[in-house]
């Protein structure tokens, strides 16, 4: 079966792209070959005035290249040849003896847009699914089918850079404004608007009018492009600290192709693509992309189990987490009922809810009218009333078993039969909390991370008796709210905190032994974590962190023993950013090392950065391997997603276990053994690592 079919009527040709056995159109290597044959055949057609590129797929024009093919490219020369060949094929569109129009009604991404860029004209629709852009840098590569050059010539260097570096996806109207397309029409009008568009192109005078709307180079772009590049570079460095080579290559390519002929420029683009394509960063980003795609479709239960509809949600607890969760659900237009301990505490949480909305407003993603409507979805009460029709409750009260159990008892007397009860506990066992409940099958853990608007992860924790339908419902709800949901086992600290706490603890020990707080934070940030362990501890609150650490110490014993010096710090009433004093002191935007803390450091000694990273990462890898061994999470790729989404573990490293793989498990094992000798049993490699090292295995197979 062919992906392309040609239909000619009244000298108007339509080349319909309909990739067999796929819901989307992709420019795979074999599709490109077919396209080339079609184009070669078309170049001698005298009976055609104009040809339309159309897609037969609902909501998709062309979704881009086949990413798994990019993933499999490991050799620089081959990579170059693949894209170079792609450039040549797409450029054949340009030399066809008739006009060509890309009819973009749906997603038009990456290679798809690069194809459209080779057409003479582009018409888009206002269909909300119509998204146009070159998001290749998200996968650690750059547009390699001529996209960098053709877009630059179409819309100018500055706009092209913004679009490519930001991996921005643009809707039809915006695309027209940026001159990426010549026309944008409502989807329902497409047929007859297209007819008049064709007529206009075939009429010299009308066509000239369309051509006159195209971008014209301005003075800045003509005479001082270096300013544009300098500014772009500054932005990229600010955002990525230079950890991601693709955006840097893009800017470099723009610079180098400033004054050379198109053909040479395209060749440079292909080489740049090839360099990036074989890099570890790109492979890691692609691996994350696929992991996240797989996650989106993983329901964690049998396919037959259908999630319940959730429209009315109640949140119990008007603290920081409660406020964040209320905000999140009101934002996705759920009716939310906030039950707080008093109306004053409820009013207090409205402060943060309204601040979160202000943040979204500032980013221009929402209008004031919509905000008013969404805040209107929130009702509030200081008693358990108005719960009859609640579909799901999220409990977010203090981390205390008795308090939580009291809440569940109250809830069970007011909610309906089908209502799901979820706890936002960060450390208490779900099975334990479920003890004494009348219907434990409806009880589940739904662990959001702080701050809720910014942290994309939700850990879903099933207790022994939690039903599959409860799991499916909570997973779907989290995803509907735009979060990444991962099912994890019911152990102390669940997955992310359990792993993360080991490294914070280890950092505190290093401090006790004489390492400087600043050096540790700096080193870890250079490694790629968004925040060093001491800054993070201050942010979360030392009191909260200490409480969780204690729970973990109780559960896991010796290896999670809270560093004694942390207790000293807690006793000094330092609780972090909340009271402006933790490992750092805070005044306004200023942040300085807290001298009270350094005063209790018994000695100081020089530490090397590799030493710090070794201790911080090895202790986490060991704990992660244990979690995997205990089936706390399905596989290494889900664990890595959890770490990336829950802690900001650097995506360019592909995740914690991917990082371990990149070191080699044998080396991990040797490191752990060495650390164990020096610092004690907490570094003792777990069984999984011992076995993997012995059998020369990796966390990621194949």
């Amino acid at each position, binding site marked *: 079966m062919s992906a392309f079919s040609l239909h000619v009527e009244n000298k108007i040709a339509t080349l319909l792209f309909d990739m067999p056995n796929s819901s989307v159109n992709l420019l795979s290597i074999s599709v490109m070959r077919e396209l080339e044959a079609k184009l070669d055949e078309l170049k001698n057609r005298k009976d055609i005035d104009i040809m339309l590129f159309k897609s037969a797929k609902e909501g998709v024009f062309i979704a881009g290249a086949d990413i798994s093919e990019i993933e499999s490219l490991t050799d620089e020369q081959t990579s170059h040849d693949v894209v170079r060949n792609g450039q040549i094929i797409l450029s054949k569109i340009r030399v066809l003896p008739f006009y060509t129009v890309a009819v973009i009604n749906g997603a038009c991404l990456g290679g798809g847009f690069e194809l459209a860029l080779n057409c003479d004209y582009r018409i888009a629709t206002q269909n909300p699914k119509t998204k146009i852009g070159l998001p290749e840098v998200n996968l650690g590569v750059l547009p390699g089918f001529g996209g960098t050059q053709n877009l630059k010539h179409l819309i100018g260097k500055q706009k092209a850079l913004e679009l490519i570096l930001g991996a921005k996806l643009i809707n039809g109207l915006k695309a027209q404004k940026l001159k990426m397309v010549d026309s944008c029409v409502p989807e329902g009008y497409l047929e007859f608007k297209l007819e008049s568009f064709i007529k206009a192109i075939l009429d010299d005078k009308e066509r000239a009018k369309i051509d006159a709307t195209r971008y014209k180079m301005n003075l800045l772009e003509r005479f001082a492009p270096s300013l544009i590049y300098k500014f772009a570079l500054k932005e990229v460095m600010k955002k990525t600290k230079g950890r991601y080579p693709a955006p840097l290559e893009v800017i470099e390519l723009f610079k180098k192709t400033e004054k050379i002929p198109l053909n040479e420029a395209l060749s440079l683009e292909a080489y740049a693509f090839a360099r990036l394509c074989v890099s570890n960063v790109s492979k890691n980003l692609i691996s994350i992309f696929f992991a996240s795609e797989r996650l989106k479709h993983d329901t964690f239960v049998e396919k037959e189990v259908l999630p319940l509809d959730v429209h009315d949600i109640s949140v119990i607890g008007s603290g920081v987490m409660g406020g964040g969760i209320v905000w999140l659900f009101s934002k996705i237009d759920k009716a939310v009922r906030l039950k707080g301990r008093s*109306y004053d505490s*409820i*009013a207090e949480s*409205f*402060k943060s809810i309204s601040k979160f909305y*202000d943040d979204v407003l500032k980013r221009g993603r929402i209008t004031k009218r919509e905000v008013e409507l969404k805040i*209107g979805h929130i009702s509030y009460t200081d008693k358990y009333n*108005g719960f009859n*029709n609640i579909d799901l409750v999220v409990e977010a009260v203090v981390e205390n078993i008795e308090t939580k159990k009291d809440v569940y008892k109250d809830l069970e007397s007011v909610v309906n039969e089908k209502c799901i009860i979820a706890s936002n506990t960060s450390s208490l066992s779900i099975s334990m909390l479920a003890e004494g409940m009348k219907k434990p099958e409806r009880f589940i853990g739904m662990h959001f991370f702080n701050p809720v608007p910014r942290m994309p992860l939700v850990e879903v924790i099933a207790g022994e008796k939690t039903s599959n339908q409860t799991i499916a419902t909570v997973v779907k709800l989290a995803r509907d709210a735009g979060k990444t949901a991962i099912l994890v086992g019911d152990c102390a600290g669940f997955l992310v905190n359990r792993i993360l706490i080991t490294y914070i603890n280890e950092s505190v020990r290093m401090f006790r032994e004489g390492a400087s707080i600043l050096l540790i934070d700096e080193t870890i940030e250079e490694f790629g974590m968004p925040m060093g362990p001491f800054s993070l501890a201050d942010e979360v609150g030392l009191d909260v962190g200490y409480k969780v650490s204690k729970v973990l110490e109780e559960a896991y014993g010796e290896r999670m023993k809270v560093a004694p010096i942390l207790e000293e710090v807690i006793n000094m009433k330092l609780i972090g950013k909340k009271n402006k004093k933790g490992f750092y002191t805070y005044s306004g935007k200023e942040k300085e090392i807290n001298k009270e803390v350094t005063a209790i450091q018994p000695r100081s000694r020089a530490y090397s950065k590799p030493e710090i990273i070794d201790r911080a990462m090895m202790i986490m890898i060991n704990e992660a391997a244990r979690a995997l061994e205990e089936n706390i999470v399905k596989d290494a790729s889900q664990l890595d997603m959890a770490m990336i989404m829950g802690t900001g573990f650097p995506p360019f490293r592909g995740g914690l276990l991917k990082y371990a793989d990149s070191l080699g498990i044998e080396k991990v094992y040797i490191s752990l053994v060495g650390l164990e000798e020096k610092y004690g049993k907490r570094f003792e490699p777990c069984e999984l690592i011992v076995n993997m090292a012995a059998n020369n295995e990796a966390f990621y197979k194949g």
Partner: protein
Amino acid sequence: MSQRVAIIDGLRTPIAKASGKLKDLRADLLGAHIVKEVVLRTGIDFDMYDEVIIGNVGQPSDAVNIARVIALRAGFSDKTSAYTVHRNCASGMESITTAASKILSGHGEIYLAGGAESMSNLPLLFTKGMSDIIEAMLRSKSLIDKIKTLSRFTPSYLKPIVGLMQGLTDPLSGLIMGSTAEILAQDFGISRAEQDYFALASHQKAERAQKEGIFAQEIAPIVYDAKNGLIMSDDDGIRYAQSIEALTRLKPFFDKRNGTVTAGNSAQISDAAAAVVLMSESKAKEMGLTPLGYLREYAYAGLEPARMGLGPAYSTAKILEMTKMKMSDFELIELNEAFASQVLANMAAFESKKYAQTHLGRDEALGAIDTNILNVNGGGIALGHPVGMTGTRLVIHTLKELRRRNKNVGLATLCIGGGQGASLILEVE
């Protein structure tokens, strides 16, 4: 009425002084908050309601059918219809009686009725002269046209019409409500001191009731400033330790020279919303609900606009005739306090045989109003009178107070700008 109609439950927002705490919440937002809360607490699913009916006087230009806006904001689905009713100060009762009629005629089973008013948000209007110019400017094409149009302008056109004042003025008699209160004071010879003492009592009763938490039983607190985390839980018009001296010091507001009606012995201008859930008695039984109480009968009557304050006498005469009841049958009376003189005038009219004969077409007096059961927790003078909302508040408050007192039958009545009266007989079991 052929049958009673059950009122399942009702709630209101606190009443805020106009241009005060609730000034940034438009009437539709106030209404949506309370409607949502009543529906949730009553526990009947949104989709089971047949319709939403809301009373509102100062119908905002950005939400002209404010009931529909309130319904959708509150969480009703698109398919629930909604409309707004207007009977001036009785709009919040009209919504209830309209719903009752629809229930009894079988047009629907379950209704949400209420009233919402933001007197803070009544607009300032352009004068007719000014709006004529603006309109002409929009139509003028050439520059000369425009200059010609502009030349018609005189500075007096800039003085805005205060929508609130215009709304409180009867266009036929040309009298602002306060002036109709002055007429009643004259008709019945009610002194300034009598009015001030009545006002004082209203504040004292309301102060006691607020301190005892009586109003809290009908109020759902409302967040009025999310940014700064501010919430309002109590009515803020009640003056604690109000004194006769303070009231006496105030100057007459409407008739500066000879008048007796002051801001202190008139109802306050305020913002608030209230809502109730209604259904037939049999439907309530079928659903296993215990209603807060019942609407037994209602009546509206008209009289001359200049003496609109006596509306309760007319509508009560009508309802007593309809039900063959006597004033002494009522164990509790809520007679809205628009003005102290207006309540006092009604008291005089109710017990006057002569007034009954000359005005009400009755041989005998309506019957004296027992002050021990009249407005037992104060009224509009202390609490405020958000015009479109008050009617609903009176119904809720009468029923809850009957329950507190273990009594069964109450009368809620109010006077209506433009010359009407409304009377509702309410019962609890």
